[in-house]
């Protein structure tokens, strides 16, 4: 017997619908952060917090998502993994069922792949990548612009609206909850969908595992030219460090992908992370903030890397690195 779809009798004004995320059988941290952010918004709106969990072992996921502050968990038992046609369709249907004041999703890679489509289909004002927000008669989100050099606030004058939240900005929800778990029926024909997920691939491990290193010398755009890698290689040799980098170095093909630290690269937790010529974009910081000691060398005293550094060298790496090499030679 198939379960009946949820109905809430139209009492949902002021509610928030937040979408959980999982991959290869595990809920991702952003799901619990979305609960915290969603609860905050639902409190401000005076409504309930609904969580949608779509595809895979939804009953198991629902148990784990049943944390303090969640009112209802909608399980959509269709498909195994993320597929944006499934997510977009299911979220749109659920949205029309729940009629929330706000849709909230993680600003993750998969969030980028369905949330804008849902917002467009439902004609919702869309605010991406909020690092904070407040609701006081109207919704206002805090965002970053110009490579995190400035923060802005944007006000949304229509409801309902959609917002995606940056990972790591809200703490993950904890504590057991007593949410109602409601299966939501959504028919999905994966074969008929215009996009098909056919598998996953892990970025090759290669010769070195930077995640195991105790001392990482990591380089960014500041090294300017591929030839300048030689200088860094020399530092790596005299100090016995392991070489890693931020994204642009890998994009340029100067180092292989297995050396990349960051959101789409590796998470590292060395004793010392020496960041040379790295500005400290949020995607990079996500991969290295767990380092015990962070040392940053950068010419720009306002570079965000200094916000998380324990030690800072404001200076030109082409002066500082040769001097450092001499120290250990």
């Amino acid at each position, binding site marked *: 017997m198939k379960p009946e779809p949820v109905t809430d009798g139209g009492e949902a004004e002021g509610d928030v619908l937040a979408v959980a995320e999982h991959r290869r059988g595990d809920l*991702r941290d952003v799901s619990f952060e979305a609960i915290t952010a969603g609860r905050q918004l639902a409190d401000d709106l005076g409504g309930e917090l609904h969580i949608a969990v779509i595809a895979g072992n939804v009953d198991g996921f629902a148990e784990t998502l049943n944390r303090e502050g969640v009112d209802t968990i909608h399980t959509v038992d269709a498909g195994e993994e*993320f597929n*944006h046609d499934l997510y977009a369709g299911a979220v749109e249907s659920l949205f029309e069922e729940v009629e929330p004041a706000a849709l909230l999703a993680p600003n993750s*890679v998969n969030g*980028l*792949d*369905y*949330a*804008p*489509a849902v917002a*467009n289909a439902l004609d919702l*004002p*869309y605010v*991406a990548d909020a690092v904070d927000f407040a609701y006081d008669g109207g919704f206002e989100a805090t*965002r970053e*612009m*110009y*490579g*995190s050099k400035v*923060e*802005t*606030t944007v*006000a*949304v*004058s*229509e409801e309902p609206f959609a917002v995606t939240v940056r990972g790591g900005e809200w703490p993950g929800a904890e504590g057991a909850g007593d949410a109602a778990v409601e299966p939501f029926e959504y028919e999905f024909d994966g074969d008929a969908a*215009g*996009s*098909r*997920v056919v598998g*996953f691939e*892990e970025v090759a491990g290669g010769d070195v595992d930077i995640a195991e290193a*105790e*001392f990482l010398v990591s380089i960014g755009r500041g090294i300017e030219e591929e030839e300048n890698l030689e200088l860094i290689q020399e530092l790596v040799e005299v*100090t*016995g*460090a392991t070489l890693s980098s931020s*994204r642009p170095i890998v994009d340029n093909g100067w180092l292989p992908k297995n050396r990349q630290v960051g959101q*789409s690269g590796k*998470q590292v937790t060395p004793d*010392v992370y020496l960041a040379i010529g790295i500005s400290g974009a949020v995607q990079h910081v996500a991969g290295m903030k767990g380092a*015990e000691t962070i*040392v940053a060398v950068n010419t720009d005293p*306002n570079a965000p890397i*200094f*916000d*998380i*550094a*324990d*030690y*800072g*060298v*404001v200076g*030109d790496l082409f002066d*500082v690195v040769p*001097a*450092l090499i*001499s*120290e*250990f030679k």
Partner: protein
Amino acid sequence: MKILVTVKEVGEAADDFEIEGLDVGERFLEYDLNEWDDYAIEAGVQLAEEFDDVEVVSATIGPERSEETIRMALAKGVDRAVRVWDDDVAAADLDVAAKTRLLAAVVEEEEPDLVLSGVQANDDNFGATGVSLADEVGFEWAAVVNHLEMAEDFSTASLHRELEGGIEELTEVDLPAVLTIQTGLNEPRYASLRGIRQAQSKEIAPKTLADLGLDASAVESPIERTAMYEPESESDATYFEGDADEQAARLADVLREKGVVGR
């Protein structure tokens, strides 16, 4: 076959800048081609080189100033360009929905088989227009593409989507589609002197809202920027003063204290 590449000119704030009102002061902004779009252009041009009879057209929402950036795209191999602008667009604070409406009108006019768009723009960092556009025009889509192979008949694209944590998703998408392109997909070329010369004679077609069959309501937005400020520095770093030798000496001391050198 026709490929439409969305090209955005973005402002980059100088290291030392001042905020004037709700934006970085004009004199502190340097305009350049959006980094992600550079990879999208390269992807389009490479497909045109690989397959016969492929036209690559760029679409930009931007003022006359942005023609300099558009010429850069043309110099890299884009065949011709469309630039959308008029007084109503200039006066508007364009949100994702407004950009979607403008670009959808261009898509309807151009009828491309494939739309390539940077994942995000490094000025406002929304990362939404490509997927929103796909929904609007009824195309398939894929976001954050870092590997792309096109079927001989342009019916499907096999691609990788770059997920978090060093994992890539392998996906097949039917065309027509919008793909949002991640950096690292390819190696964007520099414009050659010959390309730059040729770009001068390529067409940049200006389009107003009226040309696209739209009116001022297309750029109305319920989202409004209300403040811009420099975030307070959270730095509690210990800074090493002095010249490079002194800084390096202090830094070496720290590395020795932490016991990480010479292991």
